């Protein structure tokens, strides 16, 4: 105990004068970063490197022998007619369809809602809460709930439609294109509230004087939106677009619960396929290889996305 006290009081006198202040500062910064760095190394860097190693093997975690097979797992993905290539690229395609179909809505709908909520209207905070509410539910909850609601034969949605005289045997969860419409619709309903709140915060940050100035220059509502609102939202939009694209590209739960990947495997996303292959079928090697190919695609898309956003920013 006393040793510690002595040492601590002695430290500033012994060390300070000799060491340049910059070095101390760097050390302090590193010490503050250390806890996160440790977590980062243990849970991100090590698994990422280890995953590359796994992907070079026929890796069944339950078997004692895990033969090294070089790049076979990767080559299989690019060999038509192999066990994994057809399913992998089809699931990549499904993920692409979902991402392309969902991201525009997941950005445009929240933008519209945010602009509306940004008006001084009575009960604004109530609406904000209403739109945000679905987001607090887990994917398991919304998946099971909508599976009941969208059931082609016994679901409430078709029942309501038939009440209004619309053809009422729409296979919302069973067949395409309806399955895609359901998946996108449910996701938009689920996630929009979150994006709305972020965009709303961005809108609040735009200087009101800019609108006044625009009004003096004779700008109408549309012109103000294009010339003041959108440029003002740029950094926030970059964040929302990027996280939404990555979120959509990682879609798993909605397909798993609503459509079970069907019809056939048409709505089976790549994450769903990789998870099944690696965790249920214990083919960790092939699944790891697929993860890296997916990672390359997502990295590429993110780079392009950032480039576009920053160029606009200039």
């Amino acid at each position, binding site marked *: 105990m006393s040793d510690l006290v002595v040492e601590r009081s002695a430290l500033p006198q012994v060390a300070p004068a000799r060491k340049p202040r910059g070095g101390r500062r760097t050390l302090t910064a590193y010490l503050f970063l250390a806890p996160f760095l*440790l977590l980062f190394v243990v849970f991100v860097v090590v698994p990422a490197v280890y995953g590359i*190693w796994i992907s070079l093997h026929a890796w069944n975690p*339950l*078997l004692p022998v895990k033969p090294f097979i070089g790049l076979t797992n990767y080559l299989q993905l690019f060999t038509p007619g192999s*066990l994994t290539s057809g399913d992998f690229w089809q699931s990549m395609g499904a993920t692409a369809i979902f991402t392309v179909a969902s991201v525009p809505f997941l950005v445009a709908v929240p933008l519209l809602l945010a602009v509306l909520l940004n008006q001084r209207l009575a009960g604004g905070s109530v609406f904000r809460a209403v739109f945000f509410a679905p987001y607090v539910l887990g994917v398991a909850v919304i998946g099971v709930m909508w599976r009941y609601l969208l*059931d082609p034969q016994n679901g409430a949605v078709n029942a309501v439609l038939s009440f209004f005289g619309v053809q009422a*045997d729409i*296979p919302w969860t069973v*067949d395409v294109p309806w399955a895609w419409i359901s998946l996108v619709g449910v996701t938009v309903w689920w996630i929009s509230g979150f994006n709305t709140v972020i965009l709303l915060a961005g809108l609040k940050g735009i200087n009101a004087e800019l609108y006044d100035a625009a009004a003096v220059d004779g700008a109408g509502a549309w012109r103000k939106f294009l010339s003041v609102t959108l440029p003002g939202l740029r950094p926030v939009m970059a964040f929302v677009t990027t996280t939404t694209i990555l979120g959509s590209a990682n879609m798993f739960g909605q397909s798993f619960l609503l459509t079970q990947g069907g019809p056939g495997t048409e709505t089976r996303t790549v994450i769903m396929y990789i998870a099944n292959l690696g965790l249920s*079928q214990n083919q960790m090697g092939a699944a790891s290889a697929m993860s890296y190919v997916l990672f390359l695609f997502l990295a590429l898309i993110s780079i392009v996305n950032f480039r576009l956003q920053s160029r606009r920013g200039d």
Partner: protein
Amino acid sequence: MKNGLVRRLTAAGVALAVGTALAACSGGTAASTGGDVKAGGYDGPKVTVTFWNGFTGGAGPQVLKKLVSEFNSSHKNIAISSVPMEWDDIAAKMPLAVKAGRGPDVTVVHGSDVATYAAQGLLLKADAIAKTLKMDESDFPSGLYENGSYQDAQYGLPWSVTPLGLYINKDVLKKAGLDEDTVPTTEAEYDEALAALRAKGVQGEWVDPYFFTGVMEFQSLLWQYGGELYNDDVSKATYNSDAGVKALNVMLDRIKQGDSPAKVAQDGDINALIAGKTAFNWNGIWQTSNTALQSKNWTAAAVPQIGTEKAVWSSSTDWAFVNNKGQDSNKTQAAGVFVQWMNEHSLAWAETGELPATNSVREDSSLVSKYPNLKPFLAELDYAHFETSAPGIPSADALLNTAVNEAILQKKSPQQALDDAAKKADLQLQQNKQQYGY
């Protein structure tokens, strides 16, 4: 001084991380072939035996609870701790838990998983305990006991069987002017009933494109037409035969003739039967304990013979002793006593809507008098086909589910769907053989 410490700590951290990675790379300990469960009783110190099972629905939990507490109170030095969880969760959690030494001591698994688990070194050989129980293949429906073996050793001891049957909503038959007590047993009778229902605007049998129950019906029909899922050594898929195409066409015709909607949701078939929208449903014996069904005027029967021979799909469950890392042999020994006791008391299991696997228990006349709904399923066991047993087979089976889904939803022709699945299944089986070395 401090910088040095940081550097050393960093170095130590990196070394630790690399070490962990390398240790994991070396693949850990070899999967032992699994020791034996010794025969005889247990008279060691008091132990708690962990028992994982998937009996979470219907009457299962209550019946199991009663049996376990009865066992616990009559065995002073053994306490069974039953851990019910979803079947899928067991399949997902057990392998890695066993490798980490944290799995159960004894479990009930699906018959189709036994060979895979055995090949993965997760199970102990149960030959000795089977001998004590005087169990052999003659005690069970044909083919069942063999399904629990792998490479000449017995790993699974059959516990229950769950065949498909024909469920009938009698009120729907009556409304269509049919005799509610006449059960169709042949293709002609079944077609006649469907036609009569059609004439009254009733869709007679809803065809479901999912594993529950479309794939089960497909497999029943495949066998009825003399087809097989795989060849004898499970190296090739054979369901893309004429028999397979015929089976799918029978199901598709139900849709084309107006006996079923085209895009039925999962469980839409049994829900329609309960709601009185349809008269027939091919469904598993577990539906006999479906509470929603009990308020209806229903009956169950053997599935009709549509093809050239009698055949029906059935699933099964098996007892298995678990080869945990560092497994306590006392616990395994005590688990053996538990399994033996459960087998002697398996008549009570019928209350769950599953048939006890042991012939003598099913032949006990009190079974039918106590559970009359199960009666039609008993005769089916003479010609029931059980799921294929081979390491890694679930991966291949899943491909058939996709094919049936694609064909019933008319995304592909029956031949095309089955050919595509069989081609992929052959590659999968080849990989299984290579990986598991069977």
